[in-house]
């Protein structure tokens, strides 16, 4: 393809081909400190569905090794988002080595905290804010559990901040690097935070999980233990490949559920959430 970029994020290599220079230039800047894969695991293609769409109201169609039908094209100004969506899609649909959990992950003292939850529960925001408080950011979107070892591998892609979370994180991490503000995307306003040097430096170091949290935003602060069967079901639904990896997935997930405590926390604001997380972690 005309323009190409490759990057390794944690244990996964990507190659992105693009009809346009702009998305590739942005990726080069934001992922400047990341290594390159020798042979990428996944390929993403950003292209113009019709040749003239390269120039006239340019719109970016996303394809790759694994695709969802009917993915709508994005305007070129959101090309970076298209690339990130394309990479996420390859992980969600194509990852087979690790049990993939739709969860953010941070590490402290050699152990991982996983935060699983539906979109809007604040996974990315909490992970970014915890990284501002000395936790190592392992990833804001996917946690990778190795069925062979039970360890969690980091996947520190660019942190995707949406809407009000953008201002909250910018205030907490004023010196961090950010991508361009993309307003009016299908998911609202989006701005990407570049994981800090510590997150990238340690991204090859897997750690054992120590706590699973299911945060929900918008309620009075509360916390309750979640029974094993509920954790199990919730995580099968938070995993895009649980069924596809078969018995290895069953082993990895039952082991996780049997050995790692899980709690659901309600929080009215991020400050209170951080306090709850720190308290639960201290009580482990």
């Amino acid at each position, binding site marked *: 393809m005309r323009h190409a970029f490759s990057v390794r994020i944690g244990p996964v290599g990507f190659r992105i081909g693009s009809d346009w220079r702009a998305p590739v230039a942005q990726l080069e800047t934001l992922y400047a400190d990341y290594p390159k894969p020798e042979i990428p695991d996944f390929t993403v293609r950003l292209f113009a569905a019709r040749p003239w769409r390269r120039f006239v109201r340019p719109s970016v169609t996303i394809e790759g090794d694994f695709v969802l039908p009917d993915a709508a094209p994005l305007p070129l100004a959101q090309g970076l988002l298209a690339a990130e969506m394309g990479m996420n899609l390859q992980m969600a649909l194509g990852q087979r080595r690790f049990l993939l959990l739709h969860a953010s992950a941070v590490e402290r003292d050699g152990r991982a905290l996983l935060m699983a939850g539906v979109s809007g529960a604040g996974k990315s925001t909490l992970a970014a804010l915890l990284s501002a408080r000395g936790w190592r950011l392992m990833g804001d979107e996917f946690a990778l559990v190795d069925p062979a070892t039970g360890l969690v591998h980091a996947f520190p892609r660019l942190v995707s901040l949406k809407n009000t979370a953008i201002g909250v994180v910018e205030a907490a991490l004023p010196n961090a690097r950010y991508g361009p503000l993309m307003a009016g995307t299908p998911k609202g306003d989006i701005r990407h935070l570049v994981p800090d040097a510590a997150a990238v430096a340690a991204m090859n170091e897997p750690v054992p999980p120590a706590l699973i949290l299911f945060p929900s935003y918008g309620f009075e602060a509360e916390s309750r233990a979640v029974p094993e*069967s509920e954790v199990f079901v919730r995580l099968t639904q938070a995993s895009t490949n649980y*069924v596809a990896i078969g018995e290895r997935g069953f082993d990895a997930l039952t082991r996780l559920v049997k050995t790692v405590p899980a709690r659901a926390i309600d929080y009215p604001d991020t400050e209170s959430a951080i306090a709850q997380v720190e308290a639960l972690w201290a009580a482990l």
Partner: protein
Amino acid sequence: MSDETPEPAEKAPSEETLGTGATRRRALMLGAAGAAAVVSIRPALAQTNASLLTCEIPVPDPGRAGKYVAADGSVVAPGTSGAFAPAGRPFKGFEVKQALGGGQLPGTTYEQNQAYVNYIRKLQHGTSGFTCFASLQMPRG
């Protein structure tokens, strides 16, 4: 077709068996008709059944918050004798599924459980928790 793999001796610490020895003469309830005891995990990209396990049924519904639940499941004034105070938290679909199958809702006494289950059985369309309850009744999907 040959599809049987004999069960090997497993070394995983979480591995357990369905062993019946330890459960001799334990009570076993076959449960009410229509209360399924098997849920199959589906791919997350097409979730239906599994979400039933985590949907919620408040007892009673928020429209009648604070009222008591009588033994037959009807909602009565707070303090009515023989009736039970509202549940401390909504019940999850899987808890209700289990209770309908002869189990007990968490944190309830025997009579309290009966009253709550009767309340849930009487849920009407438009009442909070109805969709969750109705889904639980559907035979597998």
